[in-house]
């Protein structure tokens, strides 16, 4: 036994020497970032990859607190994990750092407690750059969300076809069958003929609306341009001048502030025009219609509100249905019911929001908030 022992010891010494060299080689050339950090949180040693990831030289890093390079949003958790590692517990977590160019880098970090004898002297860690992976994950998430949204839309279209399109079709079928009867009264026949044409026109209008809406959803990359809201309001007023005159409406622009947005012009025009048309459609028969459009900038947002003195609505009753497709709330008014849905969708595509306040018998205010720069 004693004969064999010495060679084993000497070969163990050799192995240990090799391991030390191997360690140094690995430390310097390992493709992931490897570092040691003292109990004070300052870098003690860093390998080449740490310098590459952070875009700093060794001199810039050693002696500096690692916290300086962590993304501010992750300060709290990274100091928590650091503390845990210095208490003797290995840690694995993901974090975000900022490199020399200020870019965000995602890291998968493993930190081990570092002891000399029984004394804790700091941590030893490996960090893997997972930025590409993270970006892929985020792109995947965006795609998933977009798919979900499109699926919801598909379900919406199914409902439109099952409910809304079926309605004028059922009338056309029924009226056709009624008109085939030979013992119809003259008056009934006349009513049926008029209704037949009306139903066909309604169906035509719905097909056109749906076409417009589908086209809207295919326009993801419209050019953004500078839009002077006041000019656009005037454009809308000119577009629907006939409706305005025949309703005897007065439209005023309040707010002297010049409001210039960088956004999709066609959508903004459509939003304004639909809100104006809506005000005209739901005007009160008791007083001449007055519509006030006010424009305001609030920080990085533009506020456009359209206030009318029309019939108003009971929002408690209507609530979430207001912006839905083909919903009508006034029996005496023949609305296609698509206007507000289009407004809501366009506001959404412009990354804005729309709010409504209304009092029955007094009037309604729609307020559209849009980012100044899209």
């Amino acid at each position, binding site marked *: 036994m004693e004969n064999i022992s010495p060679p084993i010891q000497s070969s163990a010494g050799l192995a240990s020497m090799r391991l030390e060299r191997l360690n140094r080689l690995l430390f310097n050339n390992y493709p992931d970032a490897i570092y040691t950090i003292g109990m004070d949180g300052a870098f003690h040693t860093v390998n080449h990859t740490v310098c590459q990831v952070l875009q700093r030289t060794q001199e810039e890093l050693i002696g500096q607190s690692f916290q300086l390079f962590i993304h501010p949003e992750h300060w709290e958790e990274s100091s928590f994990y650091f503390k845990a590692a210095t208490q003797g517990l290995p840690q694995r977590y993901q974090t975000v750092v900022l490199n020399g160019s200020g870019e965000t880098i995602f890291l998968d970090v493993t930190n081990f407690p570092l002891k000399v004898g029984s004394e804790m002297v700091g941590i030893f860690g490996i960090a893997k750059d997972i930025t590409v992976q993270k970006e892929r994950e985020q792109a995947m998430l965006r795609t998933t969300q977009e798919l979900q949204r499109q699926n919801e839309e598909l379900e919406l279209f199914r*409902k439109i*076809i*099952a*409910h809304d399109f*079926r*309605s004028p*079709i*059922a*009338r056309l*079928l*029924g*009226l056709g*069958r*009624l008109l085939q*009867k*030979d*013992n*119809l009264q003259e008056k*009934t026949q006349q*009513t*049926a003929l008029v*209704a037949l044409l*009306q*139903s066909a026109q309604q169906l035509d209008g719905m097909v056109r609306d749906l076409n417009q809406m589908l086209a809207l959803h295919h326009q993801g990359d419209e050019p953004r341009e500078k839009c002077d809201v006041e000019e656009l309001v005037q454009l809308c007023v000119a577009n629907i001048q006939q409706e305005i005159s025949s309703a005897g409406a007065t439209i005023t622009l309040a707010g002297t502030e010049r409001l210039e947005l960088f956004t999709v012009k066609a959508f903004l025009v459509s939003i304004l025009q639909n809100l104006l048309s809506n005000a005209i459609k739901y005007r009160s028969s008791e007083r001449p219609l007055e519509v006030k459009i006010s424009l305001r900038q609030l920080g990085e947002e533009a506020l456009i509100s359209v206030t009318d003195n029309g019939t108003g609505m009971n929002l408690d*009753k209507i609530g979430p249905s207001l912006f839905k497709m083909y*919903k*009508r*709330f*006034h*029996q005496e008014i023949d609305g296609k019911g698509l206007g507000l849905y289009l407004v809501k969708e366009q506001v959404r595509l412009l990354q804005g929001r729309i709010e409504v306040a209304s009092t029955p018998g007094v009037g309604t205010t729609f307020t559209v908030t849009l980012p100044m720069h899209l």
Partner: protein
Amino acid sequence: MEVYNTCVRCCLLYFEAGGGQNGCVGDKRKPMFKSVYIIDDDEVSAFLTEAMLAAEHFARKYDTFLNPQDALQHLLPLLQQDQRRSIPDVIFLDLNMPYVDGWQFLDTLAPHAPLIKCSCMLYMLTSSLDFNDVRRAQKYDFLAGFLQKPIEEETIRDLLHKA
């Protein structure tokens, strides 16, 4: 030819209704039902239903309600006071209506389900093709059936047959 058609149609109807050929009284048939409610916010659709029913001599009296709330105002007191003779024999109820839709209408009537079942045939008459609607309708046991718009002669005759 026309007379022949009318006659065949009307005899067939009476035959189906169990009255045999004796029930046929020339071109003019006696309406089977006293009174019918048509509840539909769509004026054209309500007109159409009434005209089709009238052409089949379905009832003596048709009450059309463009606003379901008006129909409830008529119907609820009759149900509450159990005035069976004034309760309409048949109700055609549309589904998609503003303010009060067909479902809300049914929910309002639900407490009177037993009386409705024995005094009145309540049909949902809708243009909807949504199968979910049919499934949902099955939960209302006092509903006599789910009918597709436009109402057809065949269906009307079936209803008369059930009377």
